[in-house]
């Protein structure tokens, strides 16, 4: 059996999630040895035609062309993994979904007629069947390696399914809500970062998106009782994973 073919694709994004692969300094040459990097524009000029065993997809769908491109990638890929908040939730650019897109275009560009964009920024799974999702803005690079290794081995990846709040306790941080009365989204946010924000004495800002069955309403009530400003709280939910925390600011 030959090496598995890995492809990396970019849609609307900051490049940070695919940079996570190049940031695996200790593992990069071993990864390039273990798999055939068949399409990864940021890293190589070499392009090998599909089909691909695994496609990592970064970024959200924001143009009609990209909506077609992702369908072609699906046809050419055995496994599709959506990586990062843009690919899994539309990213920060999904804030347009709650605004007038024509006004946005004319606010930034002198010639709106040169710009082709959709009115919304949507996750990859809104357009095609996605096999696995890895959350985070950016994703955790160790989890990315684990996920690729697991899907090549045909096993389930070991990615934490609990909340940042649990990671925070495991890390031994002092709770910033209890001790400092800070607004923190740790109880409702997917684990994966290692509770970085509370470790530097700030509240979690939800960049890994909601964990499964998160009770965001209950948390919002508690934070308001603690004196959090309601508008600020709405903005906290309405940032990097707005489409997934929608009910906490649209009501």
């Amino acid at each position, binding site marked *: 059996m030959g090496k598995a073919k890995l492809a990396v694709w970019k849609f609307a994004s900051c490049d*940070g999630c695919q940079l996570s692969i190049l940031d695996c300094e200790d593992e990069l040459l071993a990864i390039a040895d273990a798999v055939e990097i068949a399409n990864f524009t940021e890293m190589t000029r070499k392009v090998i035609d599909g089909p691909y065993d695994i496609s990592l997809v970064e970024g959200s769908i924001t143009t009609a062309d990209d909506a077609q491109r992702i369908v072609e990638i699906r046809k050419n890929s055995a496994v599709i993994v959506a990586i990062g908040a843009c690919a899994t939730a539309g990213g920060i650019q999904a804030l347009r979904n709650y605004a007038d897109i024509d006004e946005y*275009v004319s606010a930034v560009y002198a010639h709106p007629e040169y710009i082709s964009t959709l009115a919304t920024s949507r996750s990859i799974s809104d357009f095609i069947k996605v096999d696995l999702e890895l959350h985070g803005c950016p994703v955790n690079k160790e989890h990315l390696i684990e996920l690729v290794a697991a899907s090549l081995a045909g096993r389930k990846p070991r990615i934490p399914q609990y909340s940042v709040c649990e990671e925070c306790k495991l890390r031994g941080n002092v709770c910033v809500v209890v001790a400092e009365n800070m607004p923190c989204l740790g109880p409702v946010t997917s684990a994966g970062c290692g509770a970085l924000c509370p470790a*530097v004495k700030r509240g979690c800002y939800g960049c890994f998106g909601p964990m499964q069955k998160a009770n965001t309403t209950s948390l919002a009530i508690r934070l308001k009782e603690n004196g959090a400003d309601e508008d600020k709280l709405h903005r906290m939910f309405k940032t990097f994973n707005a489409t997934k925390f929608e009910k906490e600011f649209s009501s």
Partner: protein
Amino acid sequence: MEKKKMATSCDIDVHGIARIEGEGALHVHIDDGELKNVELEIFEPPRFFEAFLRGRGFEEPPDITARICGICPVAYQMSACLAIEDACSVQVRDEIQTLRRLLYCGEWIQSHVLHVFLLHAPDFFGLEDAVELAKINKSAVERGLFMKKMGNKLMEVVGGRAIHPVNVRVGGFYSAPSKGDLQDLVEDLKKALDYAIWAVEWVAAFDFPDINTSYPLVSLVHDTLYPIDYGTVASTEGFNVSPKEFLDRIVEEHVARSSALHAKLDGETPYLTGPMARFNLNYDRLTPIAKQCAEASGIERDCRNPFKTIIMRSLEVVVAFEEALRIIDNYVAPDPSYEQVLPRSGIGYGATEAPRGTIVHRYELGKDGLIKEAQIVPPTSQNQAAIEEDLKNVIANNMDLDQEQLTNYCETAVRNHDPCISCSAHFLDVDIKR
């Protein structure tokens, strides 16, 4: 290089230029031996940061604008902080500004080393990527990866995370790292500095085409330090102005081929920011070892050859390691780790040196602390017009190359400037027509 004869008319189209950050294309049209047209097209979809920043809180731009670019988030965070602090008339203590410089050194190292070793160096060996480079010179790539890792470590220890640091806030840092946490890095930073000194020697021995440029160069300048984290904006044309006055002088034009705006000086002159501009305008402020390396490398102090930016970038890696070691040696944790910033209505400007060049932010705040208007001018939109000038220069001097050689040459000419397309779209495919 052996030159193959080619037809005098052709089109070169590169869709998706590799080993750059983001999505862009290059179209070149040559007719009867005459260069008719060069267009650098940026088709990275627009993300509208300047639109959705309106109505957000004054404390939010460091986290939000970081997401413009995963490779240089600190550049966005630092310019945003300076601009908002300017609007609120707050100046942070020297200890805080110095800690910002240390974080920024981490970003310069990881971004520059990524470009020098993984993206740019393979061009000089005619290779597709760094994995192929590792097959012929594994220790070079391994040294590069070690330096890059140390840049990321600095960002983790100071910023809390390498990509999109969490520890930066308007006014300073949520928490200051302890002296011990920083001292733990010193031994590896010293080893990395040795590798960085070797890297200057390694890249200086590459084969460089003889190309010269004449557009103005623009970078921050500072009385004593090599510019990274703040300064005034100076040019080879002789001006030296505040970030506000600089923004007033540049005109951002929206052209059909690009979702990035083209910035020109006084609306007409292409100019360049980044390593070549910083090197030319700040040679005397190079750190001591970096200056020795520059002298030993034989690079002219007024070098205007964009292919030699790989030497300049490598020298700046030496600067960043020296600066990091100096800052850690003198470090006293700022206490408190931030200044209290109270919002007020006003306009503020902030300019810093991203790895790719000068980045300017401007915010107008309301008295409620919400952003009324945001303007972000990243390096690649400023450099785009100058990159097209370089392409014209390269093509005019190499009409006798065959299609494949000329295409590769054009791609390298673009990569010389490490364009960051996610940043600018707010870019690359090469397409040469003859």
